[in-house]
């Protein structure tokens, strides 16, 4: 089958369309605009076309020579005797897959938002910002230069900031938004430093050039490792990896569809994408790659433990996201691009579905608190069905999508980093446990809330249903090795042999066992109550306390570092120096000034024309005398 290759103007249009939607909607922004339906149609229309174009791009890349389309754009900066930075587009299997993920999830989320945000007075601003985010995210994916990647990287950070703080009258939302921007910016400083190092060493920031063996071999190993670590610091910030994970749970203050799109499926995955984008560079710096693996594996377990005890459904999902991103990092570091990106691909669908499900539950019950839910499977059956499918997929249970990608990570980790494989297996168990804890607490037992639960409207259910399809089936794309072949070099084989054959592998049985054990534990505790959760809580009270207090990380950052060490420490010391030491020194001059001030003041009563003339003449005279006399 031959498909006409996509014209380059349409490749540009993929990210320019949402940008245009933003530009079209944003001038209209008013705080209380009333009805603003057209805004959502503009925004959804733009991303819809982008989605179609992304599929076309995907098909075109398959046929392109070297599976690569490079479009040269304009020079953003070109200094004579200095750097030249071209803003162009780089389309390869990696960016093509990412384009499809982002546009499809964005489309579904935006349709869902039409109902979810329906009664919000700032409906218009919402759609403007979602469009801005989508444009920046797509730009990040397709840019061919690390500098423009960085620019879009920060712009997605800005849209994330604006959307977390969407309800800006709520102090908690604004604080969370600020925290998100600042913590990710710590990572961005690393990213920026890496750009400086790479440019200084190679004279370019072009991604293809930087990844070429010739350029990489020109950089000495130590410098390359530092550059890779700088890039990874940026990735850690965006992808919420330990110790820069603290912003992501708080980011749940934003509207739930935003959490689904930005803080689950797409933006947070940008860190994984960056490592994938610069994979040859990371490969040339094996120490850095080891760090990626360790940080990923550690974050996976670390975040999962906190997910076990959260009482807010969105917080559980947020910690789950951090944990899953950790597995992606581990996968990419041990198994290569396709392992990490395949995980990212599957995760995007089932995790955004879980969030949309949480939003639907919230619509039904008016709360995100697990303690005020229960027994909802009869009241909101569709939401229940979709949520459970996504939960099974997340748990990595055959034959749903999550199983296949988890397989890849576990196999790669076992091969390269056996210790970290243990972390990944433990994470599998914990994941299944916490997500089924949520399923059982929300949908089973008796309803504990006071709200009259009702199923959500079709506008919300249809996108969820459409996301449920890939949440179940996206993993099958690699049953025949097709995904691996597309992103890497693997050979393809028969679909059924991969689909069924995957189970024959002992590793698969291990991971399946871990997942089922997790589900069973949750079942024991929350359905059958053979053991009371409270008893477990008491028995494990010290770890429980550590998990609920988030290992004291928030306390460390907000109180110990920001408030005490900096604000009341270093900054106050600087302020004191400024007022007392430097201010005092200039007060010495000031005592001299009182005299001069008095003299100047005396002149102030006269005609101003006189001052001007006197001043100018006086100054000139002083200068002339000085010059003539020497």
């Amino acid at each position, binding site marked *: 089958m031959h498909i006409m290759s996509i014209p380059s103007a349409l490749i540009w249009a993929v990210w320019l369309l949402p940008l245009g939607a933003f530009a079209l909607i944003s001038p209209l922004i008013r705080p209380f605009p009333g009805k603003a339906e057209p805004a959502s149609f503009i925004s959804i229309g733009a991303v819809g076309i982008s989605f179609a174009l992304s599929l076309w791009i995907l098909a075109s890349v398959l046929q392109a020579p070297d599976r690569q389309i490079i479009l040269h754009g304009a020079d953003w900066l070109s*200094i004579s005797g*200095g750097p030249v930075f071209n803003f162009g587009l780089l389309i390869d299997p990696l960016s093509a897959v990412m384009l499809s993920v982002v546009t499809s999830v964005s489309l579904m989320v935006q349709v869902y938002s039409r109902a979810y945000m329906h009664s919000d007075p700032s409906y218009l601003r919402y759609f403007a910002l979602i469009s801005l985010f989508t444009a920046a995210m797509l730009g990040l994916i397709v840019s061919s230069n690390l500098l423009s990647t960085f620019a879009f990287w920060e712009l997605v950070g800005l849209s994330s900031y604006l959307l977390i*703080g969407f309800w800006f*009258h709520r102090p908690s939302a604004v604080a969370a938004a600020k925290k998100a921007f600042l913590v990710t*910016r710590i990572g961005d400083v690393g990213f920026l430093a890496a750009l*400086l190092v790479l440019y200084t060493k190679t004279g370019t920031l072009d991604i293809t050039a930087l990844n070429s063996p010739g350029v990489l071999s020109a950089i000495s190993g130590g410098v390359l490792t530092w550059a890779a670590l700088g890039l990874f610091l940026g990735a850690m910030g965006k992808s919420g990896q330990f110790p820069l994970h603290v912003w992501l749970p708080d980011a749940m203050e934003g509207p739930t569809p935003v959490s689904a799109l930005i803080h689950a499926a797409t933006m947070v995955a940008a860190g994984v994408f960056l490592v994938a984008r610069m994979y040859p560079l990371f490969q040339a710096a094996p120490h850095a790659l080891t760090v990626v693996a360790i940080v990923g594996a550690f974050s996976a377990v670390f975040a999962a433990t906190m997910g076990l005890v959260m009482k807010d459904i969105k917080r559980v999902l947020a910690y789950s996201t951090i944990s899953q991103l950790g597995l992606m990092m581990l996968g990419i570091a041990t198994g290569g691009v396709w392992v990490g990106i395949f995980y990212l691909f599957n995760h995007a669908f089932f995790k955004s579905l879980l969030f949309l499900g949480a939003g639907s539950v919230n619509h039904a019950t008016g709360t995100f608190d697990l303690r005020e839910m229960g027994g909802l499977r009869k009241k909101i059956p569709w939401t229940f069905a979709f949520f459970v499918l996504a939960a099974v997929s997340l748990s990595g249970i055959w034959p749903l999508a999550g199983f296949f990608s988890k397989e890849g990570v576990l196999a790669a980790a076992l091969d390269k980093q056996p210790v970290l494989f243990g972390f990944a297996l433990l994470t599998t168990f914990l994941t299944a446990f916490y997500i089924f804890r949520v399923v059982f607490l929300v949908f089973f037992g008796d309803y504990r809330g006071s709200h009259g639960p009702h199923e959500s409207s079709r506008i919300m259910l249809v996108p969820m249903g459409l996301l449920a399809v890939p949440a179940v089936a996206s993993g099958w794309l690699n049953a025949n090795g097709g995904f691996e072949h597309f992103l890497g070099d693997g050979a393809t084989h028969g679909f059924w042999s991969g689909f069924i054959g995957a189970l024959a592998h002992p590793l698969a049985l291990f991971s399946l066992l871990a997942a089922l054990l997790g589900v069973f534990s949750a079942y024991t505790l929350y359905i059958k109550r053979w053991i009371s959760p409270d008893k477990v809580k008491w028995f494990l009270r010290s770890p429980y306390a550590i998990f609920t207090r988030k290992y004291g990380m928030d306390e460390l950052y907000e109180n110990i570092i920001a408030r005490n060490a900096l604000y009341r420490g270093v900054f106050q010391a600087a302020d004191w120096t400024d007022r007392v030491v430097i201010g005092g020194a200039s007060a010495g001059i000031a005592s001299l000034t009182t005299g001069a001030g008095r003299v100047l003041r005396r002149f*102030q009563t006269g005609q101003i024309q006189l001052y001007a003339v006197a001043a100018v003449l006086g100054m000139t005279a*002083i200068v002339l005398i000085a010059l003539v006399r020497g």
Partner: protein
Amino acid sequence: MNSHLLSLIIFLPLAGALLIGTYPRIPAGVVKYAALAFTLSVLALSVILLFRFDRQANGMQFQEIYSWIPALAAYYRLGIDGISLPLVALTSLLSVVAVLMSWKVENRTREFFIWLLVLESSVLGVFCALDLLLFFIFWEVEVVPVYFLISIWGSGDRRHSATKYVLFTLLGSALMLAGIVSLYYSTGSLDMVAIAGSGAAIAQTLLPAVPIFFLLLAGFAVKLPVVPFHSWQPDAYTDAPAAVTVMLAGSLAKMGGYGMIRLCVSIFPEVARRYAPIMLALAVIGIIYGAAIAFRQTNLKRLIAYSSISHMGFVLLGIFALSQTSLVGASLQMVSHGLITALLFCTASIIMDTTGENDIRRLGGLARQMPSTATFFMLAGLGALGLPSTSGFAAEFTTFLGSYSSSEVAGIKVFVLVALLGVLLAAAYVLWTIQRVLFGPVLPVFNDSRDADMRQKTYCGLFVILIFFVGLYPMAVVSIVQNSTAGVIKLLGG
């Protein structure tokens, strides 16, 4: 090729001042229109300059040379290159805005606008003068209008702040004068370009090069300001009337950076290279120190003043990194900071005027009551924290890149990596300020606050357009600057 464009630009505002001054019966309502007309004409001429400027050429353009004091070999010598042209344009733009911001001045209106116009003339003179004596006179004249503008129309402890400003400036310029005199006796010339061109040929008659370099630097360091010579700055910025703060921060501070490039680095490249590590250390200290203190401020204007110290540190960094790219970065940063700081002070003054409150701790929730002002303030803040697509990013990134990759100064990489923290700190204090002033629950006390009116929206909107224009298309400025900075680098023998 004598065109009189530069003379016209410099002296039009002064002519306006004289006109207003000599006809005392002009009603106040007309005075402001007259001032607007004069500043707008200057702006129009600057735009003509921008278009007629030959971006491919090297050296000075639009030169005017007349013999002035033959006994001293002093000439009335004007000219601009790519380094001064953006600053001329910036100054004429900010002057128009300063007039518009002062639309409601009711106390001694005539005098106010007279001083504002005199101020514009003197600053433009500094950027256009190519004769040391002429340069110095313009430099000195500027002090007078600023003194009166702060001490009469200012707020807070305005007399003290005005006097402090005058004393610091005069102290700096006295040293600078000594430098100029020494330079004159060493070279027998007052021609800035010629002296720079024959840099190595300076006879060691009066003083060795090093002290002359530092004497000249003193005046510029106070103006920029370089920490620790900055203590006049927060007081002056805080107590000056808003329009004057915009001029001081947006335009006058650049006289310091400009002077350093034009005189210190161009005339004494060897000395500049030798002492660059010290200057870079001061730059980095300024970046971090200014940002750190900004966190502790409770007065909105004072906070912006300290952030300004931090941002001018990037200019110093770019200048003394002594590479083509870093100098371009420093020039970009001067333009960018001029626009961003001006917008910050404009919006801050709108907020403070309508709420009658300048204490950040008592402000809050204004995004609901004054959405347009809030949007402008946020956009300015995003520029200040160096968000890509704003001029702040273009300037800071170019400066960082040019400095980090500079081969002129040993150990510069460490300085740059520390300076990167300034970007993180800027994000923190900007977003924290936005959080405290604009967001949070609506406060009923501010229910009567009026949002920006059409006049204010016009100039704020203009700044926003320019900030994003330069950010998205930095070549608009770079193409003007790059040949001239390359000329400076050539003097370094690089």
